[in-house]
């Protein structure tokens, strides 16, 4: 049994599909792709798939992930093409690669999410822990951020994208520039992290 990591984007109106609806669309595209999927056993077999942490409704994404198991030889490039021809507008597969046995599972490294938030003076980046003690809800984080930026609370969700998922907070600067707002869910506070390297 092999594993493949699929990286996908959810742009524009596709942000209005719930996590569940997105999973369904991806599953259907996978079933059409010719990838020799491995199914779960039991009364209701489903393709063995795992997804990166759920994205709240209305948020776009540049780099979400889906891990699938498959058997036998297959042309991943071709599978990606078929999938891309069978997805609702706004969902697209960006990359698909085979994982080696030593590579960690999706849930092990998708611990932080980086959000790009449009503001009055250009965009800012917001970082959230998606698992563990400092985990926070995006809604709470945005409320703090908007307050800090002097924007009315409950401003638009439109235009916000999750741009990356990371194993640790140090990895984010590659995508976010030198500083990023971090919302600590445990303390309920917004802090600024800067690149120390």
């Amino acid at each position: 049994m092999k594993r493949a990591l699929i990286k996908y984007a959810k742009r524009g109106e596709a942000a209005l599909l719930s996590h569940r609806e997105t999973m369904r669309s991806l599953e259907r595209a996978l079933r059409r792709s010719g990838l020799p999927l491995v199914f779960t056993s039991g009364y209701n077999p489903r393709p063995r798939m795992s997804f990166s942490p759920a994205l709240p409704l209305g948020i776009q994404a540049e780099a979400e992930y889906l891990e699938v198991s498959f058997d036998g030889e297959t042309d991943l490039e071709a599978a990606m093409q078929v999938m891309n021809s069978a997805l609702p507008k706004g969902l697209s597969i960006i990359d698909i690669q085979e994982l080696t046995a030593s590579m960690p599972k999706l849930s092990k490294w998708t611990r932080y999410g980086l959000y790009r938030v449009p503001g009055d003076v250009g965009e800012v980046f917001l970082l959230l822990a998606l698992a563990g003690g400092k985990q926070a809800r995006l809604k709470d984080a945005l409320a703090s951020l908007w307050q800090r930026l002097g924007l009315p609370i409950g401003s638009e969700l439109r235009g916000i994208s999750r741009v990356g998922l990371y194993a640790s907070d140090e990895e984010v600067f590659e995508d976010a520039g030198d500083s990023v707002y971090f919302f600590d869910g445990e303390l309920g506070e917004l802090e600024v992290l800067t690149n120390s390297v």
Partner: protein
Amino acid sequence: MGIDVFLEYELLGVSHPGRYLGTEVNARNKPFSEASVRWALIYPDVYEIGMSNLGLSILYEIINDTTEAMADRAYLPWVDMQERLLECGVPLFGLESRRPLASFDILGITLQHELTYTNVVRILDLAGIPLLARERDEVCPLVIGGGPGAFNPEPIAELFDFLVLGDGEEAVLEITDAVRNWKQEKTLDRSDFLRQCASIPGIYVPSLYKFAYRADGTIDSITAEAGAPNPVKKRLLSDLDGWLYPRRPVVPLIEAVHDRVSVELFRGCTRGCRFCQAGMIYRPVRERDGRLLANWARELVANTGCDELSLTSLNSADYTSILSLSEELAMEMESRHVAVSVPSLRTDSFSVQLASRLRRVKQTGLTLAPEAGSARMRASINKGVSEEDLMRAVAAAYGEGWRKLKLYFMIGLPSEGEEDVEEIWRVVRRIMREGDSGAPAKGLKLSVSISTFVPKPHTPLQWAAQMTPPEIARRHFILKEGLRMKGVTLRWHSREMSYLEGIISRGDRRLLPAVISASRQGCLDGWGEFFSWRRWEEALATEGLNPAWYAERERPFDEILPWDHLHCGVERDYLWEEYRKAGEGESTPDCRIRDCTFCGACPGKGASA
């Protein structure tokens, strides 16, 4: 506000925004501006129900395959979205094109159930289109109806420019042609154009028919204008194989009620259950070719990625080569992890074995519909199932490993006594004891569903009285008391909803003001939380209409019925004879197994003298 801007700002605030995006895989998206005839196909209920309708999906395919025409889709938005539309002053629109419904040439609305009639009114209101056909001018779309409701559309007939009776495949092409010519030539005004449409077979133009009433409220006459057919005969395709079938259907963005792809094995059913409207209006049986069906099934699965394939019809176990077809598909689909299901099975061990052979991929439920508890009632409705058939079917299901079964019964049938209702719980108790060859059935769970009989037009029971809600309540009580036992759950339909269904289903044109006012006061009858019998009572009373007169009255043979000018093929005399036989408990065999009984539905076979 433009529709695009509206969607961009408002969708995030409504439930299930995926309903309104129109960006589904396999949506045809034919350019609105390039088409010379623009259809919006409308299911007057919420997206996830409408998307499961095969009829509209067939017409969508056929229209979009013609070069000059396009077909978009629309559904009734949920109430939160309705509020947003009204508040922003944005009219209801086609999902794919995002153009106002008012800018289409034809709005084709399917009438699947009487309790969606208030929804139809709501859709036209949201679209900003004058409700009554006679109030619409040249720039308004033609509003046309179809589906089973077209066989007695009178309570809302005046909303429609015309309706199509029977199979729609060929008719939509003829309508498309007629509309294209009309638009190009610009010589006929709207009412002359409608007169011309009345000559297309199967087309009923309500404005050409006048109703006169007697002092006692019954109909005195139905007169057709010169040139309009009387009766209007339904459209019938004698061979379905030559017609397009959607093999690349639109894949719903949010989970549909029936989340599966379907191949239609056949149309029609001749078992002859006397309460069943579908069994009369879709006659005769027309089977599709098995090779075609198998190929379509493969294409459907490949083109949608769907994980369930349904072999549909009114009675799938009756398909001639059901065993070989289902066996072939089940084997092939198993390797792809696609479940094959056969809904609407008969109550016999053959059907159970069939279901069990298909149950390879997914544990599906099993439903048996003996319909009535007592042998007397089953004979009366011509349901040729004996209690022993039912027991054998249950034993077979139990033996094949099913532990959860669903049983359907109907109460409130003509001449039904309380002892007939008691038979239902007696049978259920017997099943619970005997699930496994006489011993108590270990682990068996029964879900017992009780529906209320509603007399339907074009059936043998169309003359019968409907039982009153208090009488039905007493029966529900009897069942509740009798079925207080472990492993049995009991559910029943809302009595008031069934009663309203009865009023509308045999209603006439005088009901229209009540339908409109109920809708405008917030009634969306099919949506439980927006059903209000109290508001309906008020609406009927305001119009001086007596609900009991419509629902509870047995009609004499010579009374003119509001659908006597609409003909489904089965003759009125035949239905009356069946009504008599219902009273006597006489059976009528299935004409596919035994001889033709001369119902009138087959062209050339003639009706009984």
